[in-house]
């Protein structure tokens, strides 16, 4: 039996009261409830307050560069597809600096879970706009208010036919835990975009701002297999903000296409230099 305690307890560098704490709690619970032991799990992350999360629980960690949580995740997954791989990132990290990797890994569809701490602001660098910041939000850099159209990660993912698209809220750990569990269990690339209040720099999208607006989509109400409906739902933002699984599309994963993985993980393969001998004949 795996318990939450197996994932340890660490001191953090987060501001007291930050939404990140709840996300950490949900990640730990989800992993423990799925019976994943720390050595089977790899968390990769980029740089940002959110990307420090892997350091605050016990498991395999590759904490890389800003915007680059996904490429090492996919590399590691291919090297050892038996690992449960989660990429942990922020909205700046994933949709800004790492936007290209986001697009292309949705297309690749590796069996990886992507958790985005979406606080609609850059936290670690002290409060600049992020790709998801609200129009009009003023910061020390966006002195006239944000006027670039905010990126809608869910619509974008659905438009790319992402295999699993969901949204959680850091203020509802129980619901978020279930979402993360489903995302990990889903075979394919799964996005969990998490609304995460940054109490230090985002004075607009606060706990109460989100709490007043979020609601859970009931299963009966929303059919996650209907892509067009899912897209419609993803556009809902403002007075009411839906939470839950927007879109699910079961399809072969990136690893499924690779016959070389069928005989076992790459890392356990033994190589033999003599094998190139047969290739040398072709140059004679």
């Amino acid at each position, binding site marked *: 039996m795996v318990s939450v305690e197996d994932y340890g307890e660490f001191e953090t*560098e987060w501001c007291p009261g930050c939404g990140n704490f709840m996300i950490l709690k949900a990640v730990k619970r989800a992993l423990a409830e799925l019976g994943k*032991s*720390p*050595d*089977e799990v*790899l968390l*990769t992350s980029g*740089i940002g307050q959110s990307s*420090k999360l892997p*350091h605050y629980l*016990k*498991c*395999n*960690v*590759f*904490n*890389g*560069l800003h915007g*680059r949580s*996904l*490429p*090492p*995740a*996919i*590399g*590691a*997954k*291919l*090297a*050892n597809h*038996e*690992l449960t791989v989660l990429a942990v990132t922020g909205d700046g990290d994933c949709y800004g600096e790492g936007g*290209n*990797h986001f*697009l*292309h890994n949705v297309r690749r569809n590796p069996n990886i879970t992507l958790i985005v701490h979406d606080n609609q602001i850059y936290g670690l660098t002290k409060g600049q706009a992020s790709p998801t910041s609200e129009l009009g939000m003023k910061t020390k850099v966006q002195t006239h208010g944000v006027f670039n159209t905010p990126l809608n990660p869910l619509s974008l993912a659905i438009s790319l036919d992402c295999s699993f698209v969901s949204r959680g809220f850091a203020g509802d750990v129980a619901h978020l835990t279930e979402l993360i569990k489903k995302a990990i269990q889903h075979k394919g690339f799964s996005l969990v975009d998490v609304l995460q209040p940054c109490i230090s720099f985002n004075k607009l999208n606060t706990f109460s701002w989100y709490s007043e607006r979020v609601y859970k989509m009931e299963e009966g109400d929303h059919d996650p297999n209907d892509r067009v409906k899912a897209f419609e739902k993803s556009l809902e933002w403002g007075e009411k903000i839906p939470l839950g699984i927007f879109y699910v599309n079961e399809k072969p994963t990136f690893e499924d296409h*690779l*016959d*070389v*993985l069928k*005989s076992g993980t*790459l*890392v356990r*393969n033994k*190589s*033999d*230099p*003599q*094998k*190139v*001998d047969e*290739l*040398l004949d072709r*140059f*004679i």
Partner: protein
Amino acid sequence: MSTDLVIKVGGAAGQGLQTIGVALAKTFKKSGFNVFATQFYLSRVRGGHNTFQLRVSDEPIRAMPEKVDILIALDEESIEEQIEEMFDGVIIFDNDVIKINNNNDNNNGIFFHVPMLKIAKDVCGNKIYSNSVASGAALGVMCFEFDYLAKVLAEVFKKKGDEIVDNNIKAARAGYDYAKKNFSSGCKFTVSEPTDKDGRMLIAGNDAVGLGALAAGVQFLAAYPMTPSTGVMTYVAANADDFNVVVEQAEDEIAALNMVLGASFAGARAMTTTSGGGFCLMSEALGLSGITETPAVIFLSQRPGPATGLPTMTEQGDLQFVLTAAQGEFPRCVLAPGTPDDCFYMTAEAFNIADKYQIPVFIMSDQYLADSLFTCQRFDPSKVKVARYLMSDEELADTDEYKRYELTPTGISLRAIPGQAGKVVVADSDEHNEYGHIDQTIENRILMNEKRMKKLDLLREDMEPPHQYGPKDARITLVGWGSTYGPLMEVVNILISEGHSVNHLHFTHVFPLPLEATKNILGNSETIVCVENNATGQFAKLLESETGLHVSENVLRSDGKPYSPESIIRSMREKGVI
């Protein structure tokens, strides 16, 4: 050398000059000759003026002289551009296709019209066979045994079926017969066939690197295509299924090296292939490899820069960039093969060094080495050792707490991989403690930085000393690195035959430099002349700053072309070195 003949095929991209060139190169190799072939091509798929040049000799050769004996001209431009290089040679061309305006009477004797198009249509009913007519004609003017070409054509077109094979052979035979009968200076270029027909190979540098990676057990390759490195990616991809390799074309070079690091962290032998422009994008991840101590092999094939530069030409202009790329300081290793043999064995070695020291290792090639065809001895895979330097499950199980960055006297920590023996592995781009967790204290920073940098001392001992060619105590030492090996060897031969006191010192292990050996060999040299394919003498600077020795003269070239022995000698004369 009793035989030393240069054949050049010139034409537009898409005219099939490479097919002709490769067929001829294989033909001569089959009959026991040493062959060396280079290509000059422009960055376009059709049109432009390209050449494929091959040199045939009964002695080992690795450079292209500036004279041409037989030119197969497929377009007018070939004649205009190459006529200067012809001394007493012959230009094979099809007067029905190319109109020549030849005002110079002296040139009259050198043109030999072969109605390639007409012969192809008459014999095979299709003009596409005129290339084979051309190859046959080239052998005809040499009165060379035809059978070798027939065998080569059969191999080259095997996949396309018997009819195509037969037609190509028929066309070649017709071209051959035509030339033998009509070439007025009959058999002027006759070569005597070597008796020694051992099983040598004809191979390009890029294929040799691909083979080296497969021999070393590469398991993962992520790259973004960029000339002239793409050949390695393609070669590994073509054999990936048989060798259990995952090859992924990344969305960009940033992703490519980051993917490689993820795969390597998880325990796979991983590499990327790129050229300077792509490596610019990778330099951030290079630092990540450095601080996380994650092994990575980076194959970097140089072309002239900056930015997009000259995509299909050659230069050795990226050394200083590779030595200092990425912010901060961390150990790295730079290897620069000079021959296909080096490409094979040193690629395999690169993986072992990366794994042993847990650092990024570069294999620096260039377009000249990547695309040229060389004859060489068959590689011996039994000489390739695969050393992974990973902890066994048992060793790890016996460890109470696994520390990825444990401080050790050598700076090298034992490496475990995720998912092994119930332990966890933590790697971090931030400065970290022994466990891999963020630690910003000054004491920790000092320890960790020292730990990483210490590895260079040990690594230096693994670096092979430079290779000396020519008399030990020569007055002038020509120093080179990487692909200039062949041309410089020939320069030494030529200059010695002219009575000069000169030798060549060639570096394949470029960084960290094998200091002791280098100082011992070079310490007594009166005149050190560094010869490099760049504008600023990048290796010379490294050599001077590392060894304290003084480089007397730089011979440099950065026009996009490789060195010919003649051009080096000319430059030495201009500089008054000889």
